[in-house]
């Protein structure tokens, strides 16, 4: 049962990822990315991490893709642009890096006996456990991330103000 769910979900996730890259229309790409994110959320459920499942749906599926769609629709940027590709160097670079990542994964997967993961403790992925880890062991990274996001927000406001003054 679990294996069947995993196989279906993984196939959906891969299909979504590949179709996202291949489709010419930006809105289609965003929708395929949504499919991929949702499939990954289901994978989190299979890993007994319901909190991550919910967060994946709320943050990635519920907010980020909606913003992608909003920007693409607002700018009308979904059509495939004619003309020369000015970012031609990106494709070979991405290909090389992807192959490198795949090789690393294969080395890890084939190299050592992975076997069954050690049994997880009761309530391992529960919100309480994550909150405790976040506010004790990982407090510094948590705060640093918060500062980073705050800086981004301040940056947006400053840019907007400058544009208003000019206009």
């Amino acid at each position, binding site marked *: 049962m679990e294996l069947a769910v995993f196989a279906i979900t993984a196939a959906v996730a891969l299909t979504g990822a590949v179709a996202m890259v291949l489709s010419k229309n930006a809105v289609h790409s965003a929708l395929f990315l949504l499919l991929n994110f949702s499939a990954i959320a289901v994978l989190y459920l299979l890993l007994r991490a319901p909190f991550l499942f*919910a967060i994946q*749906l709320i943050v990635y*599926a519920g907010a980020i893709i909606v913003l992608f*769609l909003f920007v693409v*629709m607002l700018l009308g940027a979904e059509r495939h642009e004619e003309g020369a590709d000015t970012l031609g160097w990106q494709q070979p670079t991405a290909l090389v890096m992807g192959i490198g990542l795949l090789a690393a994964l294969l080395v890890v997967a084939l190299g050592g006996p992975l076997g069954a993961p050690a049994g997880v403790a009761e309530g391992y992925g529960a919100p309480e456990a994550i909150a405790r880890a976040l506010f004790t062991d990982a407090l510094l990274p948590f705060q640093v991330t918060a500062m980073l996001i705050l800086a981004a927000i301040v940056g947006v406001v400053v840019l907007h103000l400058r544009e208003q003054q000019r206009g």
Partner: protein
Amino acid sequence: MDWLGIVILIIKCIGLTLAATTLFAYFTLFERRLLARFQHRIGPNRAGAIPLPGGRRVLGGWLQPAADAVKLFFKEDVVPALADRWVYLIAPGFAVVPALIIWVAIPLGYWPDGQGGNYLHFAPIDVGVLYLLAVTSLGVYGIAIAGWASNNKYSMLGGVRASAQVISYELALGLAVLGVVMQAQSFRTEAIIAGQGQLWYIVPQFLGFVIFLIASTAEVVRAPFDLVEAEQELVGGYNTEYGSMKFALFFMSEYIKLIAMNAIAVMLFLGGWQFPGLAELAAAVSASAGDTIGAAVFGLTSLGAFLLKVTVLSFVSVWMRATLPRVRYDQLMNLGWKVLLPLALVNVAVTAIVNVLLPDAGLLAALLTGAIGLVVLLVGVAIGQPARAQSSVTLIPRATHQS
């Protein structure tokens, strides 16, 4: 899980879906009759009337939803020639599915199955409240991609407005729910209802309730926040190019989402299925007629109490729609970002501080939180001025064609 379990699960899901759609059908009748009353009309009162001797007719209008459904089924089904065909076709499904799956995490009543479970709560999820928020935030896709795929500028404007609006109000909605989660100290929906045995959370979380009510109305893009389908500006908004059953699916998802939002509000703030005297009644029936019948009585009466509370909130929704004019777009954004979001943050902070300072005084802490929330709300209403119209539109001179 064996095959029998899966079959039972599928039957349960079909039952829940049918119940939700029936609820939708009769909600439309409820709304049409009430709107008519608010406007001093009568409303649909013919279909299905039962004639009585003496020329009187009773139950007029109860078949109106069926008549509407038949009409919609037999309308012509058109796909615009320049629409993005696949996205256009999946958009109605995209709209309906979140509206339906949201119901699994809401406890509709309490019918104990004798093994610590509850027949009327389909998915007791660990993070039930987060699941509800996640599914709510998925609801916008149907509208956004329908607007885009129709290849019509009015539909597109509707879709763009929908995504901006839902993103903006999601924050206030989530923070309002967070207050309740802090009060109950759990993400589990059944724990939140159990925590309201003594006192409904509307008392300590009054501010949260008001924010939730406003933000949920905006989240399901309903009047007075229905800029997505403002017919004076956008023809029909995102669903302009949809007809027949595809339009009906949008209509259905909108109403089921509204009822689900009211059900969530009942669950979070109004004690869910709890009602004074239910447990005593069930205990008395159990003592005289056996545990199975006692559990059944408890289940049905608690379901009835839940539906009663949802009906009361639904009446409030219809009332708001009949009373309030549609807001302007800048008012919508100001309300979401500059009023509701700060108020919700204050609510979270007050809840946290009071519950940490007074960890043992349940009633006192609740009343104190509620009082502070009320004061904050009143201060917010008093100092908040209605935003002035933003009429600083920059007109771009049209390029004239000169040969």
